[in-house]
């Protein structure tokens, strides 16, 4: 895009413009997703609980409830407790939000539609998404309240622990693809839904559910919402926050839900590849025409967003169904179940891909050449 623009305007201007547009797009997506999911949470939870949820602001479905909430919260007094460490207390919500926002930069919405096409995209997402908790710890500590401190400590213990099985889960699709580039991971699941990594083999199927557990825990969503457990810790790390800063924390949480759902969609659910390869069946590929390819990508983006939203709805559904776990049970789930299962699945996937490098169907059909291939495979080791 920037190269194209640079033919007409000075190249610095072209790059600046493209950079700004991309950043703004990501910010809009981050903010819009937060707003939409807050509305969605209210609606879904209301329906689960036999209520209607917002119905008045902005028409029948209460579309405008999130902006109305936002305006209300903006008008609230920004209270900084006397016992708080004011500078840290102030910046904590922004650290959380920036961390989540930075993930959007590396999240591909369709093949090639990514603000920052990183080679180590999967690793980058893991690294940056893990920083969200830093804002939580900082905010909880700087509030100068014991409840907040409890929330912060729980967040630290929980999120840092869950990063281990989470990383192990992410390694599985990376291993199958042989790349950490998220666009490549997505593209390698092209075709019918059977080529999604979820259905790649039994191990990936299990890995996906471990991933779901881990991201629910690392985004502090119920039943793992211990850092803000309202019946124990009043509101945990959010206890002292009010007004705009509270909104920023809140948006970070909802944007993070979108991020992990989208990330999971890319890793396991084929990303922008729909269950039916509609784009390639209709010929919407860049090989035919640039515009057609663009349309195909648009379809892919719709696919991706649908999957991510469904993931978020699943998390909302969980939250309004399950009671909260206790801190020791959360840690048990992580260390005694998630980590061993994820490790075993990783080993299983390794063996599976070694035995069936071209997928199960091909592998069974040509079982004899597989052995030959397997023995010929590690050329990389020949350098010794």
């Amino acid at each position, binding site marked *: 895009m920037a190269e194209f623009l640079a033919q007409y305007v*000075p190249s*610095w201007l072209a790059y600046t413009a493209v950079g700004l547009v991309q950043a703004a797009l990501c910010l809009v997506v981050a903010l819009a997703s937060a707003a939409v999911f807050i509305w969605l949470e209210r609606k879904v939870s209301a329906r689960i609980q036999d209520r209607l949820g917002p119905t008045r602001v902005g028409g029948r479905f209460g579309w405008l409830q999130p902006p109305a909430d936002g305006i209300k919260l903006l008008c609230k007094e920004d209270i900084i407790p006397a016992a708080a*460490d004011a500078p840290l207390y102030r910046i904590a919500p922004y650290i959380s939000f920036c961390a989540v926002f930075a993930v959007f930069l590396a999240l591909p919405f369709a093949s090639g539609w990514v603000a920052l096409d990183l*080679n*180590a995209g999967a*690793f980058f997402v893991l*690294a940056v998404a893990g920083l969200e908790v830093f804002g939580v710890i900082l905010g909880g500590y700087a509030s100068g309240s014991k409840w907040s401190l409890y929330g912060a400590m729980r967040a630290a*213990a929980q999120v840092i622990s869950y990063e281990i099985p989470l990383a192990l889960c992410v390694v599985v699709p990376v291993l199958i693809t042989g790349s950490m580039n998220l666009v490549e991971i997505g593209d390698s699941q092209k075709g019918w839904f059977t080529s999604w990594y979820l259905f790649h083999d039994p191990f990936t199927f299990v890995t996906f559910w471990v991933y779901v557990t881990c991201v629910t825990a690392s985004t502090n969503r119920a039943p793992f919402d211990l850092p803000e457990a309202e019946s124990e810790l009043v509101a945990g790390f959010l206890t002292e926050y009010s007004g705009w800063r509270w909104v920023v924390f809140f948006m970070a949480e909802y944007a993070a839900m979108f991020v992990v759902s989208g990330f999971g969609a890319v890793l396991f659910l084929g990303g922008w590849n729909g269950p039916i390869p509609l784009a390639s069946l209709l010929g919407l590929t860049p090989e035919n025409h640039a515009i057609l390819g663009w349309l195909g990508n648009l379809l892919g983006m719709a696919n991706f967003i649908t999957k991510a939203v469904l993931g978020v709805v699943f998390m909302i559904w969980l939250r309004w169904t399950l009671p909260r776990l206790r801190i020791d049970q959360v840690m048990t789930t992580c260390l005694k179940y998630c980590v061993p299962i994820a490790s075993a699945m990783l080993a299983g996937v390794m063996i599976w891909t070694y035995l069936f490098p071209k997928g199960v169907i091909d592998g069974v059909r040509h079982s004899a050449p597989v052995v030959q291939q397997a023995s010929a495979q590690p050329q990389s080791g020949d*350098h010794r």
Partner: protein
Amino acid sequence: MDAINWHSFFFLMCALVACTFAIAVVIASNIVRMACYLVISLAAVAGLFFLAGADFLGAAQLMVYVGGTMVLLVFGVMLTARGPFVSMKTGPAQWLVALMAAGALLFVLVQASFSIPAWAGPLASQPQPATLPATAEQLGYGLLGVRADQLDQRDAVARGGLSGYLLPFEIISVHLVVVLVGAAYLARAKRRVTKLSTNTAGSHKP
């Protein structure tokens, strides 16, 4: 030429942030603020890595250093906090020693960086290494002892391949685990806990 070189601009910005907050770490007296400044400084260094195109290294910097500092923060709060916000005082003698050590280190680093011929001139004059598909695969090979960017070298030593970093890496990580377990063992304390005596109620089996 470009009116604004964004690359240079961001490089300067990140460098400035890294240096400023590094100094702030030294000057600050509150342990949590120190940790916070350290995180910002390290994140800025990660930004420098990203600017240099080293995505993996940048992400690793974020994960290892920034994440590690977070743990440091938690431990700082849990293990040292007597009051709500702890302050640390540095004496003038400590300042002097620290300045001398830091000055010496800075001198060595500057000296070393100017003594490497490859870094002296502009980038364009340097021989370009073989272009490779930019994937993290190279790092994996590197750990196994294969320099993917030096495969065209005839010299076996330059090509690497005799010994990788995997063994040292594993030794170091095992060593770190041992240190952590030892630290936890040394820091342990006996604690009185109240346990429900078992005779309070019979187990209920329907």
